[in-house]
């Protein structure tokens, strides 16, 4: 096929032409209703359901269902509880160190935790975490993983794994705009404030305390951790609505909390932890599910899914891990599941962890055709200003093939509430069709005919998606207590850092694995980090 001739290209844009008159003639009947503002709420039926979540099994444990005699008893040097990024990273590390004799127990039917993914005839799509910012030079552990996965070779990041252009767009004033900057810079006051904010961030960044993961240099406490992000912004005189929206969005997006509830240190971490990254994040059609798949290729044969741990008891220097059907006698246990569960299950759990969790909703929308779309072309990450949601990610964006008509959009919504418990009740008690309506109402702001394009909408509810980094989270005593555990149970989960991001989960998982391996090496005189 050949290029565009200049004379012809000259006419482009004079009139918006239908791609196919037949298609347009055919669309008349359905579309003319939308034109007068009658969205077809009662129109095409949209199928869907709540995708399986671990809540039921989890609550069974909480409510203390009785345990029958185990059908299987096993001795195993190491049990890893939790098959999310933390647990799989711990397993990956053990494997790397040549210690292959472990078992990973996962509550749900599939490993991956918040990084799980789904697949249909269109392709793969994330069910949760969907990217990892390009790790900086100091994030050695993340870099080691990506070298292992072939994403980082000789200091060069694999172009296929970097987010394709255009990466993000923002919907405001009735149309999409490429990137976030134009929104922040729109008003003259916004421009001045944004540059002042950027300067402040540069100062904070230079201080070196905002690291990813936290363990490589974050302070054990900080004055910034004693105020909320909103209060800090107010105190510093950052008052433009655009910047305030962005700050709040950042907190909801990364932590599931509003800026008024988030520790200023955490809020600033979102902005100051990373250099301005030209490369864009690492992402895959299945989001971080791609990493999960790669990790499972390495350790998946030792992952037991549907294995809900019911109790961890101590017996001398060993631990006994009970599931509904099996009992594992282990020399070491890595607790790589959310910390609030440990309080229910681990004998002698050392402290009352006053950690609260933000609930999340993730919707995967199957689109049979692309909806109306005004302004900048579709990006990977698409955010609507003023929306209660966090926007959507186009899962087909990261496919190299030319996009077809169909796509899957992964829509994210954190559910901040008066209290996390109230928000959780709201999340769990709202029926599917109401949630589906809320999701579509939100998307409708930017895509008026979205309801006629979506044929299926599945929802996954995360009651306890992530620990909330509220003021004081940095120097919470329980975190230090858990980290200084002397075994046989070691704790390795993102909750220990207090911010739920990939590198944090990986770092905590590997760090627990190191300690456990040390113990095992001491016990057997073999292997070790």
């Amino acid at each position: 096929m050949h290029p565009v001739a200049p004379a012809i290209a000259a006419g482009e844009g004079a009139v918006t032409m239908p791609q196919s008159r037949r298609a347009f003639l055919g669309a008349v009947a359905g579309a003319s209703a939308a034109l007068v503002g009658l969205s077809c709420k009662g129109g095409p039926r949209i199928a869907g359901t709540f995708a399986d979540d671990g809540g039921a099994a989890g609550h069974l444990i909480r409510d203390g269902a009785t345990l029958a005699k185990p059908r299987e008893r096993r001795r195993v040097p190491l049990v890893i509880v939790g098959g999310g990024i933390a647990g799989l990273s711990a397993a990956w590390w053990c494997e790397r160190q040549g210690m292959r004799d472990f078992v990973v127990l996962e509550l749900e039917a599939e490993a991956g935790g918040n990084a799980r993914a789904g697949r249909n005839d269109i392709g793969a799509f994330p069910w949760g975490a969907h990217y990892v910012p390009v790790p900086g030079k100091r994030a050695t552990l993340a870099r080691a993983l990506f070298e292992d996965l072939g994403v980082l070779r000789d200091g060069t990041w694999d172009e296929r794994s970097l987010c394709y252009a255009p990466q993000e767009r923002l919907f405001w004033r009735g149309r999409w705009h490429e990137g976030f900057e134009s929104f922040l810079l729109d008003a003259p006051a916004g421009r001045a404030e944004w540059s002042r904010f950027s300067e402040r961030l540069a100062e904070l960044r230079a201080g070196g305390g905002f690291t990813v993961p936290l363990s490589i240099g974050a302070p054990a406490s900080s004055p910034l951790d004693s105020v909320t992000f909103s209060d800090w912004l107010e105190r510093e005189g950052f008052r433009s609505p655009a910047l305030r929206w962005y700050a709040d969005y950042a907190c909801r997006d990364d932590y599931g909390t509003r800026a008024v509830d988030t520790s200023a240190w955490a809020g600033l971490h979102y902005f100051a932890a990373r250099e301005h990254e030209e490369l864009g994040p690492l992402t895959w059609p299945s989001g971080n599910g791609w990493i999960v798949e790669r990790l499972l290729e390495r350790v998946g044969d030792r992952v037991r899914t549907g294995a809900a741990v019911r109790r961890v008891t101590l017996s001398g220097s060993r631990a006994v891990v009970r599931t509904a059907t099996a009992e594992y006698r282990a020399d070491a246990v890595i607790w790589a599941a959310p910390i609030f569960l440990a309080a229910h299950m681990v004998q002698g759990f050392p402290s009352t962890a006053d950690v609260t969790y933000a609930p999340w909703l993730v919707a995967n929308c199957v689109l049979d055709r692309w909806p109306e779309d005004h302004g900048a072309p579709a990006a990977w990450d698409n955010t609507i200003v003023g929306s209660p949601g966090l926007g959507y990610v186009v899962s087909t964006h990261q496919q190299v093939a030319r996009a077809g008509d169909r796509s899957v959009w992964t829509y994210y919504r954190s559910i901040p509430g008066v209290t996390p418990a109230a928000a959780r009740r709201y999340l769990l008690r709202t029926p599917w069709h109401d949630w589906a309506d809320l999701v579509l109402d939100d998307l409708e702001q930017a895509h008026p005919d979205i309801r006629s394009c979506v044929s299926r909408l599945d929802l996954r509810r995360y009651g306890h998606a992530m620990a909330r980094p509220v003021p004081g989270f940095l120097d919470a005593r329980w975190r230090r207590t858990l980290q200084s555990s002397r075994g046989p149970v070691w704790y390795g989960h993102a909750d220990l850092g207090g911010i739920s991001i990939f590198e944090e989960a990986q770092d905590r998982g590997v760090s627990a694995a190191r300690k456990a391996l040390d113990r095992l090496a001491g016990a057997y005189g073999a292997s070790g980090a």
Partner: protein
Amino acid sequence: MPAALFATTLLIAACGLVYELVAGALASYLLGDSVTQFSTIIGAYLAAMGVGSWLSRFIGRGLVARFLAVELLVAVVGGFSSTVLFLAFAWTDAFRLALYAIVVVVGILVGLEIPLLMRILRERFEFKDVVASVLTFDYLGALLASLLFPLVLVPQLGLVRSALAFGLVNAAVALWGTWLFRAALGGTRALRVAGVAALALLAGGFVYGERITAAAERGLYADDVIFARTTPYQRIVLTVWKDDLRLFLNNHLQFSSRDEYRYHEALVHPGLAGLQGARRVLVLGGGDGLALREVLKYPGVAHVTLVDLDAGMTGLFRTHPRLVELNGGALSSPRVRVVNADAFSWLDTSQDRFDFVVVDFPDPSNYSVGKLYSTAFYRLLTRHLSRDARIVVQSTSPLFARASFWCVDRTLREAGLRTAPYHLYVPSFGEWGFVLASLGEPYAAPTQLPAGLRFLTASQLAPLFDFPLDMQPVPVLPNRLNDQVLVRYYEREWERINR
């Protein structure tokens, strides 16, 4: 009464403008080059309105009846204008004749309306008020139409039904007029019968509009001259003007049969002629089979794989007699294997290696096509090259889109290839550029070309690799999947040309 009269003015003005816009849009749609289409149509239409206004002086008696008759006539002619034009495009060689005939007839009728209306109203109101109000509502009606047209009519109804819808409005206004002006009319019966008939006709057209265009397209298949079809990927339109056969994809000219040989000879031979022993060739894009035709001039080439996304394209160019004549039946050659797939995905899964690769994609005008011009794509392509293989990449115009052209060159080099950029003049495109790339030795121009060429000679090759001052390299970044600078360069450069 006044309100009704001015509503009439507003509506007929809107109708008048819609017919004009429909003609302009349809002509740009089918013929391309919308600047020319719109200017000539607006010019012809306004001139015809002038003629109509002048003719109005010859209408003396029976002003109201004549006015309503004109209304009905314009309703039918204007309302069916796009239907007739689509059919003319499909079935006849006289599309332009039909286009301008309809534009002129509608223009004359619309030109008659306002003078007649003013004269009718002059007998009832102050003349200064008549002029002021009629012209006010005339212009407001034009505004209404100009906004409705791109925002509502075209997207919701399409061109055929937009014209018919406004024909219905026009006829309804005329019918309403038989009541409004019944005092001034001798008998209303004939006009009312005609009005109802016009309404019925237009309504029928509106209901069956879809079938009419479908019939037109079926006509296009059967017709050896012209073809128009929408595939899942693009709209393919073939036009013939005298001996010039042109292919448009999404309204963009892909080739003109008068000079395509320049483009395709230059695309294939500088790279392939010097490759002794090239047996396996890959063509990416190029579903028209024209690059293929050039490749097949080498008897040593035993296998050619052509990967084109659109089965509609390759199917058309394999079967349509005019096109088969043009590409010499290349797509049916036993040496050719046609694969309808996305080139990037196909390369991802294929294990084949090739001695020569022709990369002939549409220009990088959006992020979707831009992926096929990225370092990742070229790196993937190098995995499919034999040791001395060469790639040639169609790289847009080094004159009109200088940064874009050099960006393709830079991207190939970034992917580890050694490049040799060149350019030529293709009358229907202007200055055009290609980049040869290889993993091996620096490029040396071949001393011999295959027989039967119409443009290239061996001694002509060296100057192609020489760039005059206004096409020389500019500093650019490579195009990467995660940062598609090429799409931005391209957008900026063509925008500048188009202004």
